[in-house]
């Protein structure tokens, strides 16, 4: 009997070795371990064994069962692994084949940069203000210290609705509207559409966007203006960008300046991008004119402030190397999807 058990063990091992699929293994399991299997048959003969031999033989039989169960399990795992490996090989795809894309929409390039600028100023504590695009002459000119017949009106060809109503030529009227509605401290930017009677060409559009800024508080200085706008320019154009303040004239600020940034391409040496000047003008700014503060209902003897304005289109054109302003308003999908 002992020999027989030994023989079953060996045979089971051998036959399992030869098995190639899960069905064959199952067959062998039934053949050896099943209710009518060979091992069971042997155990049934236990009755004919001497009683003192029984425990020993019983142990041997259990060992044989354990052994066969183990090798069946091992073989099973081996075959499953092989099957999985095979499946993975068969399921190979060409990962370079085209995707099934869910397209995102494209944000308009003007909005991309405007959002960035808004974020920068919000981070510096500026709220976002708005004002009407169809404006009174008073807010667009008079309150900003540009009386009728002022030469500055010549440079801003204005679209009029009536003698007193017009399409704003600048976002600066928002300065007055904000001052009228809010007591200092004031810290806002006001982005929006402005209109000038410029004939359309690659660099002119009768409608474009400006971003106005206004800060009013006690003791605001021109050094604050410089510090604030320097921080803005560095945020927009990079930590290593250089700015310079150049004296200029605007009727609604005094002192006034234009802010140039060192040419992105030549860094000040002079190249075609900056027309040889080494600097590119990006902002107009200045300390709010005392008359303008008064017109907004703010006492210039108590408060001071600075204001600035910049054109959005030109910033965006330089950012993306866009050479024609009309592309913004043509909205060709092939243009929009580039950003």
């Amino acid at each position, binding site marked *: 009997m002992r020999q027989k058990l030994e023989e079953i063990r060996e045979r089971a091992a051998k036959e399992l070795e030869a098995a190639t699929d899960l069905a064959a293994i199952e067959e062998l399991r039934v053949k050896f371990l099943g209710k009518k299997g060979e091992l069971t048959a042997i155990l049934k003969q236990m009755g004919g064994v001497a009683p003192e031999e029984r425990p020993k033989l019983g142990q041997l039989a259990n060992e044989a069962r354990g052994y066969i169960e183990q090798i069946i399990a091992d073989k099973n795992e081996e075959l499953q692994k092989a099957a999985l490996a095979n499946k993975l090989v068969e399921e190979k795809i060409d990962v370079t084949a085209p995707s099934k894309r869910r397209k995102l929409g494209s944000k308009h390039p003007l909005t991309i940069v405007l959002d960035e600028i808004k974020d920068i100023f919000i981070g510096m504590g500026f709220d*976002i203000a708005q004002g009407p695009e*169809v404006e009174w002459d008073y807010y667009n000119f008079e309150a900003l210290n540009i009386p009728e017949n002022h030469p500055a009106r010549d440079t801003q060809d204005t*679209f009029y609705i009536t003698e007193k109503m017009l*399409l704003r030529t600048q976002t600066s009227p928002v300065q007055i509207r904000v001052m009228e509605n809010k007591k200092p401290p004031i810290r806002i930017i006001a982005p929006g559409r402005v209109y000038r009677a410029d004939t359309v060409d690659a660099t002119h559009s009768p409608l474009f966007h400006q971003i106005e800024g206004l800060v009013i508080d006690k003791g605001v200085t021109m050094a*604050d203006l*410089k510090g604030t706008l320097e921080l803005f320019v560095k945020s927009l154009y990079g930590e290593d960008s250089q700015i310079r303040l*150049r004296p200029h004239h605007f009727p609604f600020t005094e002192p006034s300046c234009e802010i140039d940034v060192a040419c992105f391409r030549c860094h000040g040496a002079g190249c075609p991008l900056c027309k040889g000047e080494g600097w590119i003008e990006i902002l107009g700014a200045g300390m709010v004119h005392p008359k303008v503060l008064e017109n907004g209902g703010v006492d210039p003897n108590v408060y001071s402030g600075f204001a600035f304005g910049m054109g959005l289109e030109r910033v965006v054109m330089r950012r993306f190397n866009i050479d024609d302003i009309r592309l913004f308003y043509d909205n060709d*999908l092939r243009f*929009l999807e580039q950003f």
Partner: protein
Amino acid sequence: MNLSMKWLADYCDIDVSAKEFCDAMTLSGSKVEGFEKEGEELKRIVVGRVEEIKKHENSDHLWVCQLNVGGDSNIQIVTGAQNVNQGDYVPVALDKSVVHGGHEIKKGKLRGEVSEGMLCSLGELGLSINDFPYAIEDGIFILGDDCDKTLGMDIREAIGFDDTVVEFEITSNRSDCLSVIGLAREAAVTFNKPLKVADKAALKEDGAVEDIIKISVADADLCYRYVGAVVKNVKIGPSPRWMRERLRASGVRSINNIVDITNYVMLEYGHPMHAFDLRYVEGNHITARRATKGEKIVTLDGGERELNENMLVIADDKKPIAVAGVMGGEFSSVMDDTETIVFEAACFNGASVRTTAKALGMRTESSARFEKELDPNNCMGAITRALELITILGAGEVVDGIIDVFPTPKAPSKVKFDYEWINNFIGINVPRDRQVSILEQLGFTFEGEMVVAPSFRNDIEHPADVAEEIARIYGYDKIESTPLSGVSNAKLTPKQAFVKNVNDALLAQGVSEIQTYSFVSPKVYDKIMLPENSPLRNCVVISNPLGEDTSVMRTTAIPSMLDIVSKNYNNRNLVASFFELATVYSSNGKEQLPTEKQKVVIGAYGEGVDFFEVKGIVEEVLRKMYVFNYDFTAISDRVEFHPGRTAEITVGDVKLGFMGEISPQVQENYGIGTRVYAAELDIDACFEVATPDVKFSPLPKFPAIVRDLSFVCDADIPVMSLQKRIAAAAGKYAESVNIFDIYQGKQIEKDKKSVAFKLVLRSNEKTLTDTEADDAMNRVVKSLAELSITLRS
């Protein structure tokens, strides 16, 4: 303003390079656009003398010249010009030289004779006979006695074509800088050098002049001052070279000595002048008065101008002889036979000159200056200088005395001077002494606590104006940046954040953002077939538009969207969806500003795009807006849309907008060969009904029972009404009712449809029993049966 550096040198010594000069001037407030060196392109052109000239042996028109160009031996040049003689001094372009236009000249042979260069005409030097009136246009330039005839000298130096010209962009508040003296003053303070202005006798002297002419000012509100002087025995002729040179550098053509003197003084002093021929001043009396309505004058440019009572003229006893500050009359101008002239240096009201020039459509150098408000105190300096130049040039005999009619003297502008306030305002620390010296160099004076602005500065009214003078001369670059102090907490307003969400929801769904013009053609309303009485036709109209296409403010942004869809469709972009956050403008008449409302407009076309796709986009936008419980109701009264495929979107009584398929006619009007879908939502209305205050609901703890139900109903019943009815009938356990199939066809009666619903029932407190689910189902079936809607068998 073009500044001759040679001219500047009369008033201020500048010892830096042109580039350094330009940079420093720009940073002190006089912006330089660029500079140019005259004759810079010319290379190796020198003064030569024709020592010998003889006919070319093999030509009937060429000459062979031997030239002394200052070297050890003569050089030979062959020329085709016929105006060259022995002994003439001429510009000689040597071998490897460059003439005007960049043409290179090389040694060569002409019909067998060696030619070691070229003799030059004025044109080949980049000049014209305005620069050298004695030269002939189509021949070699024979140097006159006003040139340096040193042999071998660089021609530019020899003929005075070696100036540096700096172009300034002068801001409108600084008309005083539209002059050599004004810029010299700025240069002097910028480089801390003395300004060399000789104070001319500006005294009014009585003299014989009063026997020759009378001057009166009738309208002193428009003519602040009128200064006149007389020159007799005038000898009209060319101006000397130095004057022609400076005019050329300034961009002014030389005409004759008298005209040149008026231009020269205008450029030097910044004050326009005029010269009248006394023969044509009837009554020998000049008056500055308003024109009468319909009065006419033929101006210098030959045009007849009709005047009105708002315009100031300079008149004699009978007629206007000049439009004040704008242009002189044709008949009274200086001519070759003029014997006696009257010089005018006057000061007119800037606004009046501006409106007059604009009304007559003739903006001149003179009017451009006057409209910036000139300094009446400058008149005397200008006329004195003009008379001085008459004498220097020998152009006539100055009659004793100057007539000065000055009815409206200008009060000097005085501002409190507080150097500490200036330091605090700018954020600098410039000592009082330095501030005083800057202001003094700029022409300011001090009276006690006050600083007095020079009369040529009409932009000084406030302490801030004085602060600017200090800051710009001290240097904006020396202001040390400071960060803004004080804490300020900023964020988007709820409305701004709301709009941003709309943007995000559309972008995430693949819809691209567009930006279109706010003004449109009134014809777009015809294009979208709005009825004549539609309120949307009541636009804000631009009174001076660029053209009809941009002449009214839009009241709807649907046409702008269709325009962009059309462009894209015709550019072969096969599938596209767009949105715009568009402002529309509705008129409130002339006394009130229009109402500006923001809309979100969506447009889509192409394969796979249909009504329900766009409806889905709209619904997702509504979800992101936190707008719930909205209804889509069929409407057929929007003419630009398909009458059977348009819905109005509402929440209760609030209209949020509408969406649908664009009508085939409108689609055709826009040249779009495919179905187009569009939607418009009103931002304010959506914002009003939004409920962004979201509270978390716990995830379900108990299982749901799901039942499918299929009903047959009339084909024209809106399915949404059934959906709502089922939800209501199912009762409190109804978690959701969704439609998963709508069928019309063979297996259903005609004019009927089958609608399949998935009803999800769930309780938050227990596991529902089948009985409870059956009860709900029965209530649903019963409720629909009331409408004669039956379960599909």
